């Protein structure tokens, strides 16, 4: 994880730091501009005028994985691409999150049965935080997925995990 995680016991100071950190992280999730297939068009539409992902601070698409916070896996992951996606994920700096957008990246979608070259779910290669269903998901669904991710980030803490 990031620079400060897991170094402190849980206390009042940590709680308020948590609040600031989580606020900052959830307020500016920069996505990696990385489209695979059909869902990428809907992802672009989500960033465009009518839906405007930037309202939530997530409009700064970064082209390089080093500077991105969330990876929106938008589309079918093939076996040839799966290796690359794993590498891209490893190149991202912590804390990093993954939104799996669309049926194909959730579980292979329509290509589940006869897709000899399709990875059946991106979670086979990288951990996924939020799954957005749909083929392709509507932009509203992606926005909802993003908000779910924000909620998830807000529940994080930098305190050391208790042993119990």
């Amino acid at each position, binding site marked *: *994880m*990031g*620079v*400060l995680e897991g170094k402190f016991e849980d206390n009042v100071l940590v709680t308020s730091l948590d609040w*600031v*950190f989580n*606020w*900052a*992280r959830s*307020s*500016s999730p*920069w996505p990696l501009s990385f489209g695979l297939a059909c869902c990428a068009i809907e992802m672009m539409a989500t960033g*465009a*005028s009518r839906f*405007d992902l*930037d*309202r*939530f*601070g997530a*409009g*700064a698409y*970064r*082209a*390089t994985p*080093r*500077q991105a*916070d969330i990876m929106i896996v938008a589309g079918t992951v093939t076996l040839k691409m799966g290796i690359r996606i794993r590498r891209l994920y490893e190149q991202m*700096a*912590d*804390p990093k999150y993954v939104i799996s957008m669309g049926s194909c990246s959730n579980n292979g979608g329509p290509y589940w049965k006869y897709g000899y070259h399709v990875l059946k779910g991106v979670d086979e290669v990288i951990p996924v935080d939020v799954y957005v269903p749909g083929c392709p998901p509507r932009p509203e669904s992606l926005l909802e997925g993003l908000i779910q991710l924000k909620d998830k980030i807000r529940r994080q803490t930098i305190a050391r995990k208790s042993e119990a």
Partner: protein
Amino acid sequence: MESIRDLLELIPYTTALPVWVQAILPPAVSAVILFLFVAVLAMFAIWLERKVAAHMQDRLGPMYVGGWHGWAQSIADTIKLLLKEDIVPAAADKALFKAAPAIVFIPSFAAFVVLPFGISSIVADLNIGVLYLFAVASLTVVGILMAGWASNNKYSLFGGMRSAAQIVSYEIPAALSVMPVIIIVGSLSMQQIVRAQTGGIQNWFVFRNPFTFLAFFLYFICSLAEVNRTPFDIPEAESELVAGYHTEYSGMRFAFFFLAEYSNMFLVAGIATTLFLGGWSQVLPAQWVPKQLIPGPILFFLKALSLVFVQIWLRWTLPRLRVDQLMYLCWKVMLPLALVLVLGAGLLAVW
């Protein structure tokens, strides 16, 4: 800095401190103030850019973070970037890689020292202000080249090389386009240059004579190239070089590049304001409004920010040039034009 020294004297017991502390305190305090000021300014510029861009594109831009029109968006971005993991690639040249963001940021920060925000609001009114400005500002390229080289990434390398070529080339017409002003004023001090333009809009150098009028536009275009803004943003051209020289940078180090880019934007706007738009001096002619109604610093900011707005406007409207076209523009169009302007202004001054 004088005013800060006066202020510090008001605080009791400062005279009891050792002499070297007394000597170092005023510059240190001004440096801290300046740093905060530059950081806040850059963050504001980032927010402004996102909002202006969004409205040009029929969007709204950041709306929720912090409440009113997402005013806290840049703060959240900055905190988040500071908290991110700091990756130094295994194959990178570690020392250069770590030093590069600082070397990019420090010159843009140092250049603010001679920017006259108001009659007395200037950190140091050097008598070679303009020279200092150009000397310091051109140091940025060293940092960019270092970043490009040290990352051990081909895109970074391309970005660094492009940037070096571009900034070094555009320094020349930029410096030459300032010459007409200096010829007229006869001083390199920034405050002197502003004082020469007091007394209303008709005294601003941009409207003084045709040569300085053209020189303003020339300087503005060159300054766009120097701060790597569209249409000259080829060093970090997103669609070509991913992110150019800062492709491999994450977290805090990237934040420095980011802040440097936006503070540079304001810096060149400030220089253009000082040299051509009368700096802190008033807009309305002195024969109508004898006394300056709006405080100088506010006027300065308004003028500089309107230039920043133009930069943003251009960025979101224009496509970007290609490397060879950029060089063509510099060496075959801008440079001869700048030489003609210097010659013309010189002749005009002599005559």
